[in-house]
């Protein structure tokens, strides 16, 4: 069995992306991740099995609770201001093909970011973190039907907003 700290660090990328999907802001996402680590390290009730499969949804749940508390404390407004500033920041230059790839990725990320919060959360957990419906339902503490309807709505919105991209995207727009 791996040590708890090791498993926590293995989840960092997923946690950050989920934080990014929740908050829509890199700076806030980073703070959210740090706070999640603090809470997880101090938690008395840790998952019984210290495996990636057990620890990752547990961390997502912690992170989501922190985020909800932040929102409840009306800090979201200030964080949205940060988001606007972050979006205004220019992208760094890179070789052409990387730039294209990065640009496409940035466009997709932007499209995902523009989803309503609840849809974006479910969508990122499914498409980026590859959680099952049941795992997503556990993290967002909602029924399976809610998960499915949020995913369906997110895909419909993205299908429209990403209609312009690539050969596959022609299929998207069909």
């Amino acid at each position, binding site marked *: 069995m791996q040590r708890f700290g090791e498993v926590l*660090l293995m989840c960092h990328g997923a946690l950050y992306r989920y934080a990014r999907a929740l908050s829509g802001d890199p700076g806030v996402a980073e703070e959210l991740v*740090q706070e999640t680590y603090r809470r997880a390290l101090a938690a008395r009730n840790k998952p019984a099995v210290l495996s990636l499969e057990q620890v990752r949804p547990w961390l997502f749940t912690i992170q989501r609770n922190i985020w909800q508390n932040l929102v409840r404390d009306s800090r979201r407004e200030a964080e949205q201001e940060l988001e606007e500033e972050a979006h205004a920041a220019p992208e760094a230059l890179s070789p052409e093909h990387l730039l294209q790839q990065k640009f496409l*990725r940035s466009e997709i*990320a932007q499209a995902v970011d523009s989803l309503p919060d609840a849809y974006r959360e479910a969508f*990122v957990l499914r498409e980026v973190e590859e959680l099952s419906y049941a795992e997503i339902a556990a993290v967002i503490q909602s029924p399976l039907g809610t998960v499915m309807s949020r995913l369906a709505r997110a895909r419909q919105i993205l299908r429209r907003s990403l209609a312009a991209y*690539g050969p*596959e995207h022609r299929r998207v727009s069909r």
Partner: protein
Amino acid sequence: MSACFGNQESIHRYVDAEMTPQETIEFEKHLIECPQCRAQYQGLRAVSDLVRGARPLYDVPDASFQAARRLVERAETERRRLALRAAGLAAVAACVFVCLVVWGWREPAFPIFAGQAHRKFVEGGTELGIRSSDPQAVSEWLRPRIEFPLRLPDYPVNGGELKRYRLAGAGVMPYAGRRSAFIAYDMGGKPITLLMSAAPRAAPSGGDVYRSGKLVFRFVERDGLHIISWTDRGIHYALVSELGGRGADSCAVCHGQAAERHLIEGLTPGRHN
């Protein structure tokens, strides 16, 4: 183009690989036959592929990972420090426990224990197993309960003399892991108790020493009690009373009658331990 009625949910479940193998086979058959559902599926699949192709979607800053690692390392260092401290405390506690077991929690020396047993009996804290003034009856009661042979003597008294002490009864109490006999006497309303044990730890020590033939008697005064201890044929005795008299004089309190005086004659002071 919309999927045919009722299949919207199935398309999403198929895209997300949430169908059972049987459902998957049936739905794939349907996709071949139904152009609307196929188009709908391809559109959703394309969105999914597009986003998956753009993964990890958000760049994870290395600074964030380093910060998380510092948090984890700090927590683990702290955990190790606490574990080490806990282990240290446990070791100290274990040492203290062993010391207490070896030195502190040992039962007191046999005469002191006899004094405590006497005090407890006087204060009503000890119930005798048998109440009888018949030495034979008390001996028979004790015999199966202790680990050494016992026959209480019935010292003779000369005609016209009253016996100065009277057997009151007996009980059994543990000492040094062995069962010892606790015998109670009464002398003019004052209790006298005799504790007998075969436990090696009960061997008398300390106090003023008096010798009588092969027997060595030790006299101790403690908390107003006079305690006489001796060993005879492997059995250790401790006699306790509040009756006055030091050294051999205290024996004379009980054995001062003509018929018993020979028991204490010849008691000579020995080395003081």
